[in-house]
């Protein structure tokens, strides 16, 4: 699946299942997908898990992470699930460690991290759908976004300022 299709899928899911209000309702989306979310004490370097067990599918989130980071993790795991990444035969547990690869980082070109990149892009588009980002940006009524604008947008979307900054620049509005 190319990244454009990943973005499209994530935005459709966000708009159809989480569009009531911002921030995007990840609990509603997860429950539609029959994914249960658990918060647990995980090893320090682990941000989240996707587990398929006899009782169904679970997203397990690092309890000690910041809520914004936790939301990104949930979006990332929903991405793995929606994009069917976890269906490697015989594997029931997918572990995500805290290395959030960048879209154009040195490892991304090797193809090793394709699934992680897709899940990250899915999470970004799910949490910050392009239409809503543009809508919120135009509401600010300025052509030049300053740091405090980015902070306000990050709060609106329930993401970190870093994630917001990356999203804004990949949408070409920053």
């Amino acid at each position: 699946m190319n990244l454009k299709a990943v973005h499209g899928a994530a935005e459709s899911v966000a708009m159809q299942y989480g569009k009531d209000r911002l921030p995007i309702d990840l609990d509603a989306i997860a429950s539609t997908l029959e994914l249960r979310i658990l918060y647990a004490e995980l090893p320090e370097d682990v941000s989240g898990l996707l587990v398929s067990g006899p009782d169904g599918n679970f997203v397990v989130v690092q309890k000690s992470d910041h809520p914004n980071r936790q939301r990104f993790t949930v979006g990332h795991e929903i991405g793995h699930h929606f994009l069917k990444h976890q269906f490697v035969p015989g594997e029931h547990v997918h572990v995500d460690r805290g290395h959030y690869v960048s879209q154009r980082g040195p490892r991304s070109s090797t193809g090793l991290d394709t699934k992680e990149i897709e899940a990250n892009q899915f999470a970004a588009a799910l949490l910050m759908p392009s239409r809503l980002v543009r809508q919120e940006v135009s509401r600010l009524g300025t052509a030049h976004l300053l740091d405090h604008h980015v902070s306000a947008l990050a709060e609106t979307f329930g993401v970190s300022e870093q994630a917001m900054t990356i999203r804004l620049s990949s949408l070409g509005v920053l």
Partner: protein
Amino acid sequence: MAAPIEPFYSALGLKILEMRRMRGLTQDKLAGALNPPSTRASIANIESGKQRVLAHTIPQLAQALQVTVSELLSVPAEPARVEGAVVARELRTKLAMQPKQLQRLGRELGLTTRKNES
């Protein structure tokens, strides 16, 4: 947003959405592939689980999306028959965690019960 009518239809809708995206079809295109042609709005409602799909539409959708009817209807996905103990072992191998924390996580995930831990 109106609540999806039933989990079955929201899962089916998501499946249709997912396959449509993979095939690079717009809602309009998919609507047009049905006989009689449907509308973009109707496809949107089906995808969001707010409209029930008619039985005769299902094979048409499957054909347009290039999947089998049973693939399209394999929703809600039957969780693969997997032994809790197998998953618990995988967790143990993949995560360096204290036995107590691991047990608690296993219980929360429904992999083990308090009884068969002791």
